[in-house]
């Protein structure tokens, strides 16, 4: 059992508090992704899990053992860094074996373990090279091999794909997913890339300013964003937001009064709410009788291949929508937008909390 329990973790540098009471229960074999903008504290928490940053207050357990103050080498964790962090003066073979030399294994056992991992990651041709003689992608695969060979209880990844170009990034992402399916080691993976988070995670921890804004499966995060921040951060292009004042089901917005008669939500206490809808949930043809209708003029289009992103000016407010390429409308043409109420989100403008009852 290699579960991780974080209880009220905080981190303070002199006067600056960067993590505020972080709680998380990671189940055995789970793949957790910390996602958030830069400076949100996600890397700091990962480094606290690794033992590279002291925990100011709170407790941390890995596999049921309290490791709050344990040395990094005693926590049963292995880490992969953004800049690979290979030992530049050692060959690939020595890099991978370096961590095992402390474990009291015999030379033959170390060789066997190293060879297994080398096989798994197809690194055999590079064994006698130094890191500087390899591409970034290969170096990161060596770093992953170095982590795997220790058979740790927990893998920690600190933005491991951020230094790679787009194509390699995707390849290695798939490789990491496959490795997790095979090894089933509990994993915490930090990234600012939502695509990586959505594709890899069992659960995403969406971080904002030192707090977990929402913890949930990729699907939950995407379809039921708990707050405005989450709704805005996840999804591409970003969700459309319409600030409004509410009177019962009627929402007074800059694009006119929208009657939310087919929605179930708790009215906001302040009376002001923000409506949110994803560009993909707006259609150019009516799907339901309850669809909300907006009229506007296309002001900008962006060809994405099989889809087109259109920006539509509705009474001075720009709404972006994504439609299948053949259905796209050219710039300058007037068009009608149909917003499906089942995909509409209502947020309290003051607290930022989502008010939908689902």
């Amino acid at each position: 059992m290699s579960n991780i329990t974080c209880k009220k973790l905080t981190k303070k540098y002199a006067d600056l508090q960067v993590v505020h009471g972080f709680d998380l229960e990671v189940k055995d074999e789970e793949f957790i992704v910390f996602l958030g903008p830069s400076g949100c504290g996600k890397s700091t928490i990962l480094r606290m899990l690794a033992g590279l940053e002291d925990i100011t207050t709170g407790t941390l357990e890995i596999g049921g053992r309290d490791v709050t103050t344990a040395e990094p080498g005693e926590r049963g964790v292995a880490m992969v860094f953004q800049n690979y962090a290979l030992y530049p003066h050692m060959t690939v073979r020595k890099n991978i074996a370096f961590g095992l030399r402390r474990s009291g294994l015999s030379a033959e056992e170390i060789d066997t373990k190293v060879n297994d991992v080398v096989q798994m990651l197809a690194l055999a041709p590079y064994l006698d090279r130094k890191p500087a003689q390899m591409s970034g992608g290969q170096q990161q695969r060596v770093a992953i091999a170095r982590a795997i060979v220790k058979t740790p209880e927990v893998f920690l990844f600190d933005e491991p794909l951020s230094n790679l170009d787009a194509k390699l990034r995707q390849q290695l992402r798939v490789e990491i997913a496959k490795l997790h399916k095979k090894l089933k080691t509990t994993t915490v993976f930090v990234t600012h890339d939502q695509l990586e988070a959505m594709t890899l995670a069992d659960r995403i921890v969406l971080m904002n300013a030192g707090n977990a804004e929402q913890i949930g499966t990729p699907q939950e995060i995407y379809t039921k964003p708990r707050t405005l921040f989450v709704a805005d951060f996840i999804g591409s292009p970003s969700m459309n937001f319409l600030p409004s004042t509410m009177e019962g089901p009627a929402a007074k917005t800059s694009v006119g009064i929208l009657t939310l008669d087919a929605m179930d939500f708790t009215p906001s206490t302040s009376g002001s709410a923000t409506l949110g809808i994803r560009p993909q949930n707006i259609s150019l043809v009516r799907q339901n009788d309850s669809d909300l209708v907006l009229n506007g003029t296309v002001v900008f289009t962006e060809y994405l291949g099989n889809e087109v992103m259109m920006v539509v000016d509705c009474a001075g407010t720009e709404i972006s929508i994504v439609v299948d390429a053949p259905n796209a409308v050219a710039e300058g043409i007037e068009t009608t937008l149909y917003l499906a109420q089942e995909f509409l989100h209502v947020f309290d403008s003051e607290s930022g909390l989502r008010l939908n009852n689902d």
Partner: protein
Amino acid sequence: MGAQMANRITFGSISARVVLACVVIFAVFPVVWTLLNSFKEVVDIVTPTPKLFFTPTLENFRYVFERPSVRLGLSNSGIIVFSAVALGALFGIPAAYALAHMKSRVGDEIKFFVLSLRFLPPVAVAIPLMSIYLDLGLYDTRLSLTMTYVLLTLSTIIWLSIPAFERVPQNIEEAARLDGYGPYAIFFLVALPVAGPSLFGAIIFSFILVWNEFLIALMLTTSEAKTLPIVASEFTLLGRNVPWGILNASVIVLSIPPLIFLGVLSGFLNRMFKK
């Protein structure tokens, strides 16, 4: 287009080479002339028209090496400089490693203190040291000169080694911590080998600094602990006619160890300026 570019490069590189050659001749000629003179008889040196071709003689070198003062100076220089550099490296390199990791005001103050050791003119330090060593009965001993030189090598090695350790990526040492290694193991197995080439340069630099040192040695020694630069300078006092050949030969003997290391050092300087 291709030919034009080739022409331009050729023209540019030729003019650069001409300038470079002039500078090299200007810098190297005195050294070459000294080398030639060290193989000449005095008559060939003092002739009004400089001689490029002459019958070489090893007489000057024989004279230099047969003098007991030169042998003593050579062994003094060897022992004192080697000890001072070894002690400076033994204490300076770990100190630099610690300072490179000390990201606080205290660390900055210590770094500045180390650098400030090099601000004082050597004479200002040598006179008080002279009276201290006289009181302790250590004046004109290898021990006292070694101790004094350690002050120079230690500060130089610390100051040059701090950037070498700062260039070792922090994540590499963190990876070693996660691999279960303690601070001493990380220093010896990771930081030292990675920073090694630059540290070697720092050691060589401090060697040349104390090998060539003249002023302090002049003030702290009179006979027993005289180093080679002092002995060589005394050749100018041999009688009324300056023995040019012997003087040149002693300069060559003095220059050989630093010259050997200079080849090594140039690699280090390249590394420093590349970053």
